[in-house]
């Protein structure tokens, strides 16, 4: 054992030595070297099963498509396959490729502002933006929750959405099309924040349609519309 190995164990490195190392006898060696016995838990934990699982998991990660690997940069906020559970960060799974491309480019050229996205997108090459947009467009959206649709707010939102004619651009099932976002299943908080941003002018859509529509929305409208779309 090299001296540096001892140092590494005595101090701490935030990378994990996983149990696969036990098979190699290294843990015991290191433990002895620094005068500490490292003991694997024998109770309900199964080191062997765990090792197999982690190896399979690592193999799966390595075998992922380049697009899926690139998406690892985004998973932190947008969730696995673009299906964030948080309603604050936009759900990107199943968004139209045209919309995703338009927004990523808007973050890059500064026409859409967001502290996180603006700096993150700047380091992406054009072809990486294309790759990410295609990858996310292909992912299946989250499943709808019928319970949410049964609320009064969602019902009021449905009527308002129909009166506004949202489906003309966003599609009959609000599934999104071309450069228009998928609204079905989008997070409630994200929707309210975006509608408010369109209303106060801090977000502007290229066609100017949303700015005009949002100008006439009350806070209650925004809440109800967001409840409805998020429930789909």
């Amino acid at each position: 054992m090299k001296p540096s190995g001892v140092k590494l164990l005595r101090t701490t490195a935030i990378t994990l030595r996983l149990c696969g190392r036990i098979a190699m006898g290294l843990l015991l060696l290191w433990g002895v070297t620094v005068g500490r016995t490292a003991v694997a838990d024998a109770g309900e934990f199964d080191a062997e099963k765990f090792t197999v699982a982690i190896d399979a998991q690592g193999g799966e990660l390595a075998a992922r498509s380049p697009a899926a690997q690139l998406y690892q940069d985004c998973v932190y906020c947008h969730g696995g396959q673009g299906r964030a559970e948080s309603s604050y960060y936009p759900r990107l799974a199943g968004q139209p490729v045209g919309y995703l491309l338009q927004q990523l480019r808007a973050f890059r050229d500064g026409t859409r502002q967001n502290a996180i996205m603006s700096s993150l997108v700047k380091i992406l090459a054009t072809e990486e933006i294309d790759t990410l947009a295609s990858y996310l467009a292909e992912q299946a959206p989250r499943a709808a929750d019928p319970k949410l649709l049964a609320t009064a707010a969602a019902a009021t939102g449905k009527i308002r959405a129909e009166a506004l004619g949202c489906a003309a651009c966003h599609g009959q099932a609000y599934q999104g099309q071309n450069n228009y976002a998928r609204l079905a299943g989008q997070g409630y908080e994200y929707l309210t924040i975006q509608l408010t941003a369109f209303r106060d002018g801090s977000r502007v859509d290229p066609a100017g349609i949303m700015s005009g529509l949002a100008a006439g929305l009350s806070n209650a409208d925004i809440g109800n519309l967001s409840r409805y779309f998020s429930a789909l």
Partner: protein
Amino acid sequence: MKSKPINERSTDAGISRRQMLLAATGTALATTVAGTASLAANKVMGKPEGADANVLDVVVIGAGLAGLTAARDLMQAGRNAFVVLEANDRVGGRTLNHKLAGGHYSEAGGQWVGPGQTAVYDLCRELNIGMFPTYLKGKSVYRAADGSMYAEDAGGTFSVGPELEKVIEKLNELAAEVPSSAPWTAPRAAELDAISLAEFVKPYGLNPLDTLSLDLGLRLTDTIHYQEVSLLYALSRINYAGSYEQLEGFAGGAQEQRIENGSQYISEVLAAGIGDRLRLSTPVRSITEWDSDVVSVHTDNSVFRAREVIMAISPALCNKVAFEPDLPKKRQALQQTWPAFAPGRKTAHVYSRPFWRDAGYNGWLFDIGGEVMWAYDNSPEDGSIGVINAFIYPAMSNDPAVLAPQLAHLYAEAFGEAALDYSEFHDQDWGEEPWCMSCVSPLTPGFLTSGLMEALRAPIGSLVWAGTETAQIWQTYMDGAVRSGHRAALEALSGLASQAQEACL
């Protein structure tokens, strides 16, 4: 040394005379006026120039550790004519305590200190704030995506396999040549900044297992995947810590100790010391005439006029303030492009006692490849209650009714059924904080060598820059924030002294 302002300060005879008056009367006049509460209500906007009584020595923007440290230094130098403007309704910036029942606390933001962080150690000693060791005793639990688990007592450390060991050795070796105060001046700066940590690691051919471990470790450090982190940036941090192990370590490393009463307590004590000079819920919207002797700092309800302004907020946050005239191009570009994509999120479950300790666990849970990156024991020193904190993906549910039990079930799998009996749950997503926007963000490949970094610390006109990002060592840590506050106070005092000198000539 403070750079010369763009507009020469002594060309206007009128200003010189006023300043001579101020210099003659000393700071007493300004102190008296600024020290009274009347200043807050005083809307000086539109008032003719010459109302010297309304001109402060310094406006400090941001009541985090950097701004409050600077404010304390100003007072110690006898410069009491200042205000600290804070956008939030609280102090502490990127440190925050959840206040728990029974007067307990758990940190939601930056929380650890370790060897070499002498600035924050000194400050705590001066303020009579104690520290205690991070709890490390017992077994850590590791969990795979399929739910299978493994536990071991590694003495409260993470250890590494031989392949990773080689990576770390090389990182340490390269870091020795990267001065943390100016990484762009390193001999091979351009080369090292051209690649990401991921690209650096690739040739080592780590097996999938090591790759997963590294990914988790680096996400915990930088809150983002290591494809986005510049190698040069990573090396600059290793440089200031001394080694990778000291940077990432607990025992003997930068996470060795915790602050009594929680890390935000340091800011609360500092704030108590400056009294009503602190204005909460007062976001600064614009700063005008920063290139002249008297700067105007505009908030929603008032304008504060001062000779010096300490910007104790992150470079990305500076970009939310409108400057008139425009800042120099380089500084503008720095603020506009400064990465702000580290929306860290931390939760806390509170228990009547740290029950996991009885069963020999240290409360650590690594959810490998999962969204709960790392849960850890964050109980108070005496263990009178139990707290499990966790770093989780912001993508997880933001509905506490969903998230709290979801996490508790995970803890129960690892530490036993008692994990389901939590009395409180807290959740803090820094990505949703408008006045923080992000935890300290890692720098991306190319940023350090973009030529913009020279604008990070250099004072411009009457503006000086603080915040942990501007520190020379321990950037991203609380220690860096304290250091930056000391430096900014010195620069502001120097600016005040040179103004007074010019006025007397």
